[in-house]
C-alpha cells in the first residue's frame, strides 16, 4: 500500500489512525463502491457492517474536480487523463475532492453534525489502481469512518443543491443486498443505524491518548520499581 494522506493527520499518536486508514483503504480498493458509468452520477457508499461505526466512501470522477477549463486534450475524461497527471495536479485534485465532499455532503447523527476526515489513496494508486480494483476509470475515492453513540439511532445524509449531478447513495448492511437510493441535488436521506455497543468504543483520538497514557504509566511504574530496587540494594 502506497503512502496515504492519513499519515499527516493530527493526533498525539497516528498509529491507530494509520492502521484504520490502511484497513479502510484496502477494503475500499478491493471491494468498494460498485459504481456505474462514473460520469453519470456522484457515488456515496455507506457500510454499516460494524455497530457503532459508519464507513463512508465517496467516489470522485477526477476530471470534474479540475478548477480550470481544461483544453481538449486526448481522452480528457477517460482513464488516461488521470494516469498522466503529475504529483502537483493530483495533490490539487485530492484537495479539491476533500473540499468538494465537504461542500456537497453533510452528515448528522441526530442533532450532532459530523465532518468526515477523508483519507485518499497515494498518488501512484490513484494513477494506476491495482488489478481487481473496483474504482471506475478516471476515478478515485475517499474513505472515512464515523463513530456514533448508542443513543444515536439515525444518520441523516444531506446532498447539496449545488451538486450538479444526481447521487447514487448505496447502503450496505451485513447479509443484505445493497440498498440504492437515487437522490437529486438538494435531497436528503435518513438511515436507521444498528444499535451501537453499550460501552461506546472510544474514538481513535481517545484511544491514542489512552494508549499514550498507559505507556507513560508503565514507564513511571518501571522507573519507580527501579529506584526502589536500587534503594534496597544500597
Amino acid at each position, binding site marked *: 500500500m502506497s503512502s496515504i494522506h492519513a499519515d499527516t493527520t493530527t493526533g498525539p499518536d497516528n498509529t491507530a489512525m494509520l492502521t484504520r486508514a490502511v484497513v479502510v483503504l484496502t477494503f475500499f480498493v478491493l471491494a468498494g463502491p*460498485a459504481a*456505474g458509468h462514473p460520469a453519470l452520477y456522484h457515488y456515496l457508499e455507506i457500510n454499516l457492517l460494524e455497530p457503532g461505526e459508519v464507513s463512508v466512501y465517496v467516489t470522485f470522477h477526477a476530471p470534474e474536480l479540475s478548477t480550470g477549463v481544461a483544453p*481538449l486534450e486526448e481522452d480528457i*475524461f*477517460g482513464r488516461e487523463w488521470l494516469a498522466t497527471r503529475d504529483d502537483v495536479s493530483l495533490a490539487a485534485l485530492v484537495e479539491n475532492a476533500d473540499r468538494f465532499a465537504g461542500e456537497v455532503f453533510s452528515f448528522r447523527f441526530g442533532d450532532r453534525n459530523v465532518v468526515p476526515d477523508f483519507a485518499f489513496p497515494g498518488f501512484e494508486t490513484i494513477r494506476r489502481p491495482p488489478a481487481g480494483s473496483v474504482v*471506475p476509470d478516471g476515478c478515485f475515492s475517499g474513505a472515512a469512518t464515523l463513530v456514533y453513540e448508542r443513543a444515536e439511532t439515525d444518520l441523516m445524509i444531506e446532498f447539496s443543491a449545488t451538486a*450538479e449531478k*444526481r447521487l447514487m447513495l448505496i447502503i450496505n448492511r451485513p447479509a443484505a443486498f*445493497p440498498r*440504492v437510493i437515487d437522490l437529486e441535488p438538494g435531497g436528503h436521506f435518513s438511515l436507521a443505524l444498528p444499535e451501537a455497543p453499550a460501552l461506546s468504543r472510544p474514538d481513535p483520538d481517545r484511544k491514542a491518548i489512552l494508549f499514550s497514557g498507559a505507556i507513560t504509566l508503565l514507564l513511571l511504574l518501571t522507573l519507580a520499581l527501579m529506584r526502589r530496587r536500587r534503594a534496597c540494594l544500597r
Partner: protein
Amino acid sequence: MRMFPAILLALLATATTLPAELPDGFRFEKGALNSVTIEGAGQRLVVYGSATPNADQVLMTHMRRDLTEFARAAVGTGGRVAAPRSVAAFLGDPSAHWTAWWDKRNDYYDQQVTRLPIAPLAVADPVGDGDRLAGPGGLEFRVLETPGYTREGITYLVEVDGKKIGFSGDLILAGGRVPDLYSFQDAIPEAKIGGYHGYGGRLGQLIRSLEKLAAEKPDLLVPIRGEIITDPQGDIAELIRRVRAIYANYLSTNALNWYFKEERLTAAGRLVLGAEAEVELMDYSEHVELPDWCKHLGTTKLLLAGDGSGFVLDCGGPGPLGDLRKALADGLVTRIEGIFVTHTHNDHSAAVAEAAREFGCPVYAVAEVADVLENPGAWFLPGTSANAVDEVTVLADGEKLPWKNYELTAHFFPGQMYNHGALLVERSDHAPVFFIGDSFSPSGIDDYCLMNRNLMRDDTGYFLCFKKVRALPAGSWLVNQHIPHLFRFTPERLDLLESRYRERADLINALTPWDDPNFAIDERWASFYPYGQEIEPGKEGSLELRFWNHSVRDREIRVKLHLPEGVSAARSEVSLTIPARREGSMTFPLSIADDAKPGVSVITADIAGDDFDLKQWAEALVKIE
C-alpha cells in the same frame, strides 16, 4: 418606367449567376478534394493538394488522411508543407499512434474520428493563429485558427486585387453546410461533459470560428470540397442557424437531463445557442422504485425467482461481479442461471465472460450484440471491452425465454447504440417491465454519442425503439441499467419525443450534402470487418468491407484498397450495387509476405459513388507477428 423593374430584375438575375471569380494566377480544380494552384515569380503554391507533384509550397488546413495524401502528392520532393502547429508532430510520425491504437481502441470513449494519417509527412512550416506565410509573387497568407469540424482546423486568408479569399478546409461548405455531424463529437470541458456524452461538442467552437471568419469579411471562401462559397456572410449565418436548431432540438429530448441536470446542460447549450439563451430540457416522466424482485447493482440488474435463483442483466466490472459473489456467499441468491447482455459498452459487458465462467451460466444476447461480445477485436465501437465472451446464445428478435416464474422476451433494440438489445420481463404479479439497457432515461433519449450509431431511419434506430415501446402491453414500465427506478412515458410524451427526433433528422438532412441524414451521423456506414486481426507472415486472411446504403435509392459503390507493405490482396478494386436501405459487403482475401515486418499495419479504402468520392475513408488494422 415600366421597363425599369424588368431591367432591375434582369440585372439581379445576372448578378446571382456570375461564376465565382478567383484572381488571375489562381487556378481552381474541383474534385474529390478541391485544389487551388497559385503561380507567380516562378513559384507554385498549392492549397490542399494536387495530383501534380513538385509544388514549392502546400498549405494544409487540417490533418485528415485524405488531405494528407493529397498534400503529399503535391509536394513531391523539396516542397514545403504548411500545416496546423498543433498536429505537426503527429504528421511527422503517425506510426506510434497506430501501434498504440491496437490496444487503445478498446474501452475507447474519446469518440474522435479515426481517419488520421498513416504515413509521415514532414511539416516545414507549422503555423498558428496570426502567423503569416509568404507566397508566390509577394502574396501573404495569414493564418486564422478555426477549429470546429476538426480540433486543429485553420483557415488561410489572402488578399489579392482588393479581394479577400479564405481557404477554410472543411469548416464550412457552400450553402451553409458541413460534411457530417459526427466529426463534432467531443468533450465540453466548460460543462464538465466528456467526449462520449459530447454530441455536437465542438459546435460551439464551430460557431466561434465562423464568427471570427465572418469578422474578416472575406469575399470568397474556398472549402476543401464542393463549390466555392460566393456569399460567405450568408452561408456562415445559415450554418450557424442550422447547427443551433439541431443542438436546441437535441437538448430538448436528451436523457442527460436526468443525470447532469440543468446547470451543465444549460452551460453546454449556451456555448452553441448564445450566452443568454433559454435552454429547453425535458422534465421527468413518471418513475417509481424498483420492485423487490429486481436488485440494482451498479449497472447490473438481478432478477430473483421464488426459489432463490437469479438471472442477471449485464455485468460491467469487478464491482457488480463482487456484489453478485457477495450475494451468493450471503445466501441472498442461490445460483445465477443466466446473463442477458443488453449492449456492448464495457460498463455493461467487461465482466460477463468472467461471471459466466464462474457461475457456470449461459450468456444470452441478440445477434447484433452477440458477435461483438464473442469477437470484440473485430469491431470498433465506443467502449468495447476486449474481454471476449466464450459463447453467446443468440436470441432472435421476439424470442421468448421462459425462466422460473418469469417470461423473458428478447428484443433487438437499436437505441443508445445499434448493437443493442432489450429484455421484456413479465410475471403474473407485476406489470411488464422492459429492460432497455441504456436507451432511454426518464428525461428522454440517450443519443449523445453518434459513434454509437443512433440511426434515424424508420426501419431501425430510435424510430424502431419508439414502435416497440408503443407496442408494449398497457401499463408496462421501462428500466435503464444505470437508473434504480421503473419509469414510463405517456403516449403524449412518446409523441413529443418522436416528433422532435423526426424534426432533427430533417434538420440534419439539410445540414450536409448527403441525400440521407444517416450518412451524416453514421461514421461506420462503410467499415471493415474485422476492424482488427492478427495474421502471421506467410499466412492468409480475409477482410470484408461492409456498407449500409442509407439512401432511398440503389447505389453503386466503387472501392479501391490501399495496402501497406507486406500485405497483398487478390483484388483491390471492386464495385458493388447495394439496394436502397440495404446492406452489402465485399470480401478481399489477403496474403501476408513471408518477410513482412512485424507490427501494426493499416489498410484503407477509397469509396466512391455517383455523388461522392471519399479517399482513404475506411480503415482496418492488421497485426503481423
